[in-house]
């Protein structure tokens, strides 16, 4: 079984972003970038499938500028076998629909049995790509997975939903997207980081894949969120209850 894992380069989750003064976007200059946390969970899950003997090969793919090769290397250091880089021109930013269309081309070329993506990028907060890829390729989907098992040639996926948990069974090939509790990703060891440098990355140009890369969604402006007024510290429970009753009037 071959597993394909799309990974995205995104701002490190510890960084507090700042909006540019001209409201054209957020300032990413000299900001620490990393593999999107949900993608790291996806890579980890694929590697565990390989360790269990369910998967035979794990391929990571990332779409973006040259710098995304760093995140492909991270995936390789965690244990993926090889990488694919779909290179876009500097400054181009893609919608999830375009990403999904490019990934569809990769799926057609690689014929994976399973595609594991993150449920959401922590920059765009889109939560779309996996579902779109599933629709475009006609695959069934198991989103927001907290457990994934391969049984009798099917994927059994437990999903985190608003009311609790739901389990579905999917024919392969299938698309799965990861939630936080699917696993805890390992740290790459130094020898594995060294080994990853020798693993192959196949670079292809996004423009050559026959996908319309123009976006129909325009960012008009990006602004900072409204700031909350700084509050006060209360000295006791009595004072707190008094404030809530008589000042904020949110309890009676």
């Amino acid at each position: 079984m071959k597993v394909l894992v799309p990974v995205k380069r995104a701002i490190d989750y510890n960084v507090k972003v700042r909006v540019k003064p001209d409201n054209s976007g957020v300032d990413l200059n000299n900001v620490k970038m990393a593999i999107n946390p949900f993608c790291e969970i996806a890579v980890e899950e694929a590697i565990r499938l390989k360790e269990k003997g369910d998967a035979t090969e794990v391929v990571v793919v990332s779409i973006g500028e040259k710098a995304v090769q760093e995140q492909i290397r991270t995936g390789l250091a965690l244990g993926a076998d090889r990488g694919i880089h779909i290179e876009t021109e500097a400054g181009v930013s893609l919608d999830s629909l375009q990403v999904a269309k490019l990934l569809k081309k990769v799926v057609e070329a690689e014929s994976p049995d399973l595609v594991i993506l993150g449920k959401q990028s922590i920059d765009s907060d889109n939560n779309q790509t996996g579902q779109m890829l599933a629709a475009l390729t006609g695959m069934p989907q198991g989103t927001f997975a907290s457990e994934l098992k391969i049984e009798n040639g099917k994927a059994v996926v437990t999903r985190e939903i608003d009311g609790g948990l739901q389990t579905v069974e999917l024919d392969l090939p299938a698309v799965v997207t990861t939630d936080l509790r699917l696993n805890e990703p390992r740290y790459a060891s130094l020898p594995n980081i060294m080994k990853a440098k020798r693993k192959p990355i196949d670079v292809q140009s996004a423009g050559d894949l026959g996908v319309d890369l123009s976006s129909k969604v325009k960012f008009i402006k990006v602004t900072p969120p409204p700031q909350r007024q700084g509050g006060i510290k209360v000295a006791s429970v009595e004072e707190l209850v008094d404030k809530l009753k008589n000042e904020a009037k949110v309890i009676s």
Partner: protein
Amino acid sequence: MTVLVYAEHDNEVLKPETNKLVTAAKAVGDDVTVLVAGQQCEAVAQAAAKLSGINKVILANDAVYGHQLPENIADLVVSLASGYTHIFAAATTTGKNFMPRVAALLDVAQISDIIAVESADTFVRPIYAGNAIATVQSSDSVKVVTVRASAFDAVSDDGNAEIETIDNAIKSEKSRFLNAELTESERPELTAADVIISGGRGMQNGENFALLNGIADKLGAAIGASRAAVDAGFVPNDMQVGQTGKIVAPDLYIAVGISGAIQHLAGMKDSKVIVAINKDEEAPIFQVADYGLVGDLFEVLPQLESSL
């Protein structure tokens, strides 16, 4: 403008998110149709017909829609899409699951998790865990949009629209529902509650969450949690508030033993009044709290319960 709104429900009751979705839909146009897809969900369609100011309800009542499997629901919505300029669903785990499929099958982008409608083609949405607010304009022929319900007011239930039943069962053979483990609770749902009290890692274990019960009873509150509390197994996943959990905006949010990481703040900082109880006076949660109480939660919570 013609808007198709996807009703949020559990086959028995119409969820209040739907009333809020209709408000968002009416901000783009007057012609609003509500689609109820489910199994044995006539009561839901009856409730939807009362949503104020809508044109009509379409009811697709079939076993294939019982568990809201995204493959089936997306195909149903796509089969109904022509004639609508906008398709709206709530940014719940149901909406987030099938709507991107709808968008992809219609070959358009999806605008996720909007908090305001500027015009029929321009929407406002948070990005970067709410640390930036983007205004985006779409030139797609159909706008496929998920809506953060907590950002909109609810329409009332004084309408009387007609219900059109359709016989349109589309089933994918590739996925099957196996089972669900739903959390049973007498308390209000997190996304609908006026008051929420949430516990974090500072609660130390699941048993200690009982300290929140008495307070929640007295305030009619829902109980939430941070990711750390869920990851540690103190409470179930559906209690997680945050960037990647539930987004809430109650009148009163009480954070207990929660440090205030940006991912948690993303889920609750639009609450009207925030209270933080934390023993570390430097905890970032105090920067967003209207009322902060520095103290040990194991002393504070019993006092709070008895003084309410």
